[in-house]
């Protein structure tokens, strides 16, 4: 390789390294804004912004889904297996919403510490399987 080419290769390397460090630092400082949601533990610890809309993600606690009052409002508990927060929501739930499913709710806390959601999104995990196999998994859990 000629010296001129070596120099150009080195300059490229320097440029890519520089841009990477710059972007890395920018993302690091924006970390909280890129985080799509808070976990119930973070919400209970008061890390979520008060009186402002934020997203909370977790699993719907088994057996916690109920429709109190008018039948339009859904109430359920959301957990990250450490803490849980009660969520109230009036609106259409996505197809994947069910007990034990990961969801993300957008809303704010009311004075009773309940999370009043304006939007509920289902979070799908990376597991895909045929229905027969899923049936076997459930039975396995019951036996345990």
């Amino acid at each position, binding site marked *: 390789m000629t010296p001129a*080419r070596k120099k*150009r*290769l080195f300059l*490229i390397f320097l*440029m*890519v390294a520089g*841009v*990477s460090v710059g*972007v890395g630092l920018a*993302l690091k400082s924006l*970390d909280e804004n*890129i*985080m*799509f*949601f808070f*976990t119930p533990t973070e919400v209970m610890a008061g890390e979520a912004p008060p009186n402002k809309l934020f997203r909370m*993600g977790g699993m719907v606690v088994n057996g916690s889904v109920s429709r109190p009052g008018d039948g339009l409002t859904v109430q359920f508990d959301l957990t990250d297996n450490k803490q849980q927060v009660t969520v109230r929501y009036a609106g*259409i*739930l*996505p*197809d*994947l*919403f069910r007990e034990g499913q990961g969801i*993300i709710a957008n809303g704010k806390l009311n004075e009773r510490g309940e999370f009043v959601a304006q*939007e*509920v*999104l*289902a*979070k*799908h*995990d*990376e*597991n*895909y*399987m*045929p*229905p*027969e*196999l*899923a*049936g076997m998994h459930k039975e396995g859990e019951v036996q345990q």
Partner: protein
Amino acid sequence: MFLWFHKLGSPPHFYRIAGKWIPWLTWIFLILVAAGLYGGLILAPPDYQQGESYRIIFVHVPSAWMSMFIYVTMAFCAVVIIVWRMKLAEVVLISSAPIGASFTFLALVTGSLWGKPMWGTYWVWDARLTSELILLFLYLGVIGLHNAIEDKRVAARAVAILALVGVVNIPIIHYSVEWWHSLHQGASLTKFDKPSMPPSMYIPILIMALAFQFYYALTLFHKCRVELLQRERNSKWVKEL
């Protein structure tokens, strides 16, 4: 090997070789895409939660992979352009951009169509979706910048720098679902872990990914041939054609 590579770098030689390969690539692509779609849409079982809707994965995941693969190829060409000033690399870089942009667009659209029934929304500004959208803008930037500069050789060098700056986005897209809480799920297929789906589902995805690679190669060859003819229209070998 080096000699072969060196020869391939000469425009008339590449023009001839590419012309010979195109019919083969087309056939392999057609066979693979037929096999992948049959495996994905007919043989593969429905998902236990999403039912039939998950089948968009057979287009979505391979096109998302291609969107990143093509960008990395372009970045590699960019290094060759800046260091070695190789003409063929310039042609490959600029011919790849529209193909990469199309795959990125396809990944965004298919993901969005899946997102509405499954997540409950077409679009959210989470890290994975946003970084993939930035990738689309990078591709469009490369195309726009190339068209804005009259002298093709100067244009290629400018575009190479843009492509190299943009390459930082690739690891961000890949790791976005691990670094941040995102609505987009993590990877089901990774190199090191056991895939979190049965073979009847991931084999069609891999076949489709291979099919898309061949599609990229064959469109790239077509576009490169056209680009070469345009650039070298005054040279002896083009006049002799």
